[in-house]
């Protein structure tokens, strides 16, 4: 490791900071355009009704002020070239950030002036006096110019400042902001939880009753988050220095005695217990939300097998959700349009599995022979075909057409029946199935079949040349995904009590795909977190999330997220460990070792070391 340090100091010095007006202008302009875009889609005015921090900052302004911070951060970031020293960051970068933020802010002022003087409300419906008032704080154009430029300058400097700060301090600066925003956004969930835990006084201290967090609450949160960030950093430094000196810290021995796998087991158990215990202390609305999130987690886990493991880009995944729902409806509802037995839900589940697997085979057999883009388009088509079949007049004697099927009884367990009227019970039911799905994906991933799926995902032709029957393996993935989705469909039908073709639009497939990609393809925990965060906070295709007033913009946010993830972090938020592991050190150690071996073996001074390739 020390050798590495010496290496880097002998590298050529980077060019010093220089003023690059074109770059600053471009990024500043982009910052301004981003804010203008957010203004003109109407987001700030629309969500301005709820404050983030009581009387200080509304959610509307929050939707704009993050922009200069982010652009300031971007302008101060630097590309570290291989074989070059990293440049020391300093005042120059803060100037850059300030300029970029200032340009962005000035452009927002300009937007306010334009709104006041020209009327193009015809194409742009949000080009409105309301937006002007919002931007100018009802104090006139001059004030708008002044306040937005000043804000831009300040926030740009803050963003660049975050880059200049060492990582440890950066955390102390950012964690409080993240804490305040998330606590404020999650108000509905937290206040509900606190109320049921009889801790209303905490909620009263933090929240101003549907009006965001109080100023006092915000300060408390910020201080707490900063302390946590600072403490975490301190502990890390102390442990690192103790390791370096070889001293044993009290308690460290105890911690080291617990194997890493045991620690992982403990944390997993705690997580599972939390998932089952926390809902006991939540209210009805939160239960409803959790039940929806659960259904989507189950769907996402299924899609993860298809897309994440086997690499089959299935855009018609909703079809299997629909098949599960309709099969349940037909088999259990007394109102099903044609004569069918009124089976109990759990009995019908067996048939649901069989039907879903068959449909998976029937759709899969022709589709699976295609690859890449073609496969995606064909699955998209089949997804729509299934929905249209359920909607059609032709099949309405069986599936009820647009009227759907109503009076689906709930899930009978012993004496009680789980229905949509008790969303908490539905949530628990979904979680049981999620555990089944997680177990199945985990077992399959580490099996012969799972490895074949991964090989197909990596390179289909080579997988075939290595003796894998790709058609069979892909069909297996398709059917596994179909069965998992049909479970979710069956629970969905029992929860809603009725079922309509409108619940199975293409949008469900698209949002599920975003969830899987954002969470981290092929990673079970990532997919679950992705589903919980996106569906829980933003909301599903037709289910509201915690940010209800955000509902109109959730598709935009999904789209932006998808694009950004694919550009900047294709491995997802919680990537597969093997993809993100830091390995460069290992490579160097081995090279040194091999070099020594070669020299010892042969006394050959012309021994050339192999140059290891850094992880891409």
């Amino acid at each position: 490791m020390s050798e590495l340090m010496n290496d880097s100091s002998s590298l050529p010095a980077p060019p010093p900071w220089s003023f690059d007006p074109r770059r600053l202008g471009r990024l500043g302009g982009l910052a301004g355009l981003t804010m203008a875009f957010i203004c003109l889609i109407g987001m700030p005015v629309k969500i301005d009704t709820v404050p983030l921090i009581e009387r200080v900052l509304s959610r509307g302004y929050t939707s704009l002020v993050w922009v200069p911070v982010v652009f300031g951060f971007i302008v101060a970031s630097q590309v570290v070239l291989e074989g070059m020293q990293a440049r020391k960051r300093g005042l120059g970068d803060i100037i850059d950030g300030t300029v970029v933020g200032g340009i962005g802010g000035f452009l927002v002022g300009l937007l306010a002036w334009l709104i006041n003087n020209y009327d193009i409300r015809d194409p742009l419906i949000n080009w409105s006096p309301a937006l002007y008032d919002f931007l100018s704080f009802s104090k006139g154009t001059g004030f708008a110019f002044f306040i937005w430029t000043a804000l831009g300058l300040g926030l740009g400097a803050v963003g660049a400042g975050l880059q200049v700060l060492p990582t440890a301090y950066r955390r102390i600066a950012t964690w409080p902001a993240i804490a305040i925003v998330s606590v404020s956004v999650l108000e509905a969930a937290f206040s509900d939880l606190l109320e049921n835990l009889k801790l209303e006084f905490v909620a009263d201290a933090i929240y101003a009753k549907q009006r965001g967090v109080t100023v006092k609450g915000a300060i408390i949160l910020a201080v707490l988050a900063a302390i946590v960030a600072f403490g975490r950093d301190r502990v890390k430094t102390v442990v690192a220095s103790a390791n370096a000196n070889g001293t044993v810290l009290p308690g460290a021995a105890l911690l080291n005695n617990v194997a890493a796998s045991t620690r992982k087991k403990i944390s997993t158990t705690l997580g599972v217990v939390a998932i089952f215990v926390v809902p006991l202390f939540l209210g009805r609305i939160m239960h409803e939300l959790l039940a929806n999130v659960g259904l989507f987690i189950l769907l996402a886990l299924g899609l993860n097998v298809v897309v994440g493991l086997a690499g089959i880009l299935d855009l018609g995944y909703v079809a299997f959700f629909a098949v599960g729902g309709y099969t349940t409806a037909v088999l259990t509802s007394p109102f099903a349009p044609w004569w069918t037995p009124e089976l109990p839900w759990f009995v019908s589940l067996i048939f649901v599995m069989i039907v879903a697997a068959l449909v998976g085979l029937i759709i899969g057999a022709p589709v699976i022979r295609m690859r890449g883009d073609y496969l995606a388009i064909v699955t998209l088509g089949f997804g729509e075909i299934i929905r249209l079949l359920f909607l059609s007049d032709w099949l309405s004697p069986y599936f009820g057409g647009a009227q759907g099927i109503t009076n689906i009884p709930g899930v009978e367990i012993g004496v009680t029946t789980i229905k949509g009227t008790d969303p908490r019970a539905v949530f628990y039911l979904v979680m049981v199935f999620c555990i089944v799905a997680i177990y199945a994906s985990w077992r399959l991933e580490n099996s012969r079949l799972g490895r074949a799926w991964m090989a197909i995902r990596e390179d289909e032709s080579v997988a075939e040349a290595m003796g894998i029957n790709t058609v069979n393996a892909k069909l297996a993935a398709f059917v596994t995904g179909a069965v998992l989705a049909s479970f979710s469909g069956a629970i969905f039908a029992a929860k809603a009590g009725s079922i309509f073709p409108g619940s199975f639009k293409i949008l469900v497939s698209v949002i599920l795909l975003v969830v899987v990609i954002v969470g981290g393809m092929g990673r079970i925990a990532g997919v679950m977190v992705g589903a919980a965060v996106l569906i829980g906070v933003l909301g599903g295709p037709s289910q509201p999330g915690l940010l209800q007033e955000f509902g109109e913009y959730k598709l935009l946010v999904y789209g932006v997220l998808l694009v950004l993830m694919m550009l900047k972090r294709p491995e997802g938020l919680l990537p597969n460990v093997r993809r993100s592991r830091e390995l460069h050190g290992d490579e160097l150690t081995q090279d040194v070792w091999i070099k020594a071996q070669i020299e010892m073996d042969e006394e050959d001074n012309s021994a050339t070391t192999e140059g290891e390739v850094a992880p891409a």
Partner: protein
Amino acid sequence: MSHVLEIKDLNVVFGGLHAMKDLNFHVDEGEIVSVIGPNGAGKTTFFNTITGLVKPTSGDVLYEGHSILGLDPNQVTALGIARTFQNVRLFANMTVVENVMVAQHCRTKQGALSALLNTKAFKQEEREIREYGEKVLGFFGSRLVGYRFDQPAFVLSYANRRRLEIARAMATKPKLLLLDEPVAGMNPKESAELTALIGRLRSEWGFTIVMIEHDMSVVRDVSDRVVVLDHGETIAQGDFDEVSNDPGVIEAYLGRPLENAEDKT
């Protein structure tokens, strides 16, 4: 006497390009045969035809006396023909050991159900797959073992990727190993090391080997027989010395002497 692999009057036509012209070829058990030829001579097409990636226009490919024409690549591999790729094509995001484990797919049989139930047979087979994979990787000395097992393939150096390609082909438990430019891009030290390993592939593992190679020192050191292809035709074959002195081969590689070229026009 039956050949391990026999190719009869093989023709491959891509549109207007006659990639293989009436090719006849055979390999006997335990032989190491090198296929050489200038760029575009049809060497890789030759491999692709054997492994079922390219369907020939006419002719026949016999493996142990039976025709393998029309079989899918995975069936060919299951019969016992494994190959490596010229432009290394590993499963980059899978670990080193997973790369060799997945290659044993057609030699193993535990399905999804036993994986879900975690049966005794499943655990037993997983252990065997892993052990065999580690054994195959151990063939390359210290280069692919130990902590390397669980590293993703994409962090490997170029030479190690080439080695892993060979290991992956070995893990399919083949009889006939087709190596497509195994030492391409390696430095002299590394290719000397790999040349020795190719010899050991035959003596220790009992593979019959057909190898495409441009590095003549490797070809000279390991091959029993050299076949020279040009424009899809065999222009010479025999041991290395015969072939390397063959005027036709020299012409194919270096071009015709100038006065002859004038004669031709």
